[in-house]
């Protein structure tokens, strides 16, 4: 007997709410993350007929999540412009949705560097390292070829490597000297 729509939705919610909430919290402050997470599942509810069965369900959810997040950030940027006007009138606006969770200074340095990648590269790196998707899965979520995902990760890690060169006094013993670390 087929599940009712509500029952199917609840089963998807039960199964995937935590990874989707984690996805949002990795990218937004908590209040925004909860809002975006709810919106993602709302979109899912409206498109329940299109949701593929496992194991593709989570990839489909990440696909929706990317678009909802993108819309949210666009709204936030609009709001920021309004905030600038508010500041000029002496009103203090809310904080921006920057980094959220308390991390060690080294982890924060890495997170900051990841956030400074281009939007596409950042999303690929996050899906790869934080959501732990395979490169083929990332290609499916973002509509790219796997080869392009491979290369974006390769290129992004090269950039992170340059940005995250150990600062004086923090060099590890197995790091090569700066002069050997590739081109300029």
């Amino acid at each position, binding site marked *: 007997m087929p599940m009712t729509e509500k029952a199917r939705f609840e089963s998807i919610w039960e199964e995937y709410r935590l990874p989707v909430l984690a996805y949002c919290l990795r990218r937004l402050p908590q209040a925004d993350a909860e809002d975006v997470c709810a919106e993602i599942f709302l979109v899912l509810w409206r498109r329940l007929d299109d949701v593929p069965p496992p194991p593709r369900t989570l990839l489909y959810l990440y696909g929706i999540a990317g678009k909802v997040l993108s819309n949210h950030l666009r709204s936030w940027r609009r709001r920021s412009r309004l905030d600038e006007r508010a500041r000029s009138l002496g009103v203090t606006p809310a904080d921006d949705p920057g980094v959220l969770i308390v991390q060690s200074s080294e982890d924060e340095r890495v997170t900051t560097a990841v956030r400074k990648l281009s939007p596409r590269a950042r999303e690929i790196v996050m899906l790869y390292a934080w959501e732990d998707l395979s490169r083929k899965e990332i290609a499916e979520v973002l509509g790219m*070829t796997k080869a392009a995902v491979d290369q974006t990760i390769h290129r992004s890690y090269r950039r992170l490597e340059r940005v995250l060169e150990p600062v004086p006094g923090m060099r590890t013993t197995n790091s090569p000297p700066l002069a050997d670390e590739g081109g300029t």
Partner: protein
Amino acid sequence: MMHEQIDRMVRRANPVSDPKTLEDTASVLIVDMDRRIEMQTDDRPTVAGRNNWRGALIGLAAATVILLGGLVYYLNRQATPEVAEPAPNAADLPGFRMEIDPGAYYTDADGAGPSTVRGTFVIEDDGWASLEAGAMYHYRSDAETYVALIVSRIDDVASPGCDDTEWVAAADTVEEVAGQFATLPGLAIRQAVAPIVAFGYEGYYMAARVPSDIEPDSGIGGSHPPCGDGYFQVWRGPVWQDRLYQAPNQMLEFWFLDVDGTPILVEASSFRTSSEQDLAALQSVLDTLVITP
């Protein structure tokens, strides 16, 4: 540092390394979800309802197209060459890679909103998805066979197209823009730039092929062929910020059109491995394309 070290550092910096710790937050969220879904439930159309709407809309659009087509034919039966009228009630394309149902759509070719330069076309089959400024058919991430259509103003042209791309402003005339494309290092020319009248406008046509040596290496720690990133960038416009090609030997056709002084590019892309059916689907959409200033 080695890439493996970077990978470890990025993974260690994961702000939420164990989603199971979010159980409390999720339990609060479910209350909000229930409320939102309750608000949505009554509005959510049934599949049958949606299909009825879709069928009715397509029928209405088709009837209008036929009526208008007949009227245009009657009024302009002596005029040559024939140029189709834009399909009425065309819809804005949904977000990138969203599936699109059969119907009429437009691309905001100059990024200035639907009231200015736009390319309108009619999709008749299932299997199409939207691009930033166009549509693609039978896209699959693991197969290089899909076909695509883009209509956009050209703002910048790459120089060169591979690593360390720099951008130069597109020239003022379509002839010069076509020349910029034709002289882009690496872009293999299949058919030289030639004047043409297409889609109701004068302009230039050329056919090209993405270079064969952009094949990326095998990923982290691999070698670096000329386009080490696997991207070959050619142009960018107001809607499509960074048009790049990911597949070697992708086949490209360009129509550079002077749309009342605005240089507009119509780009059709395919692969040698694209099926006859896919190529025919692309051609059928191109046949409906109307550009309005």
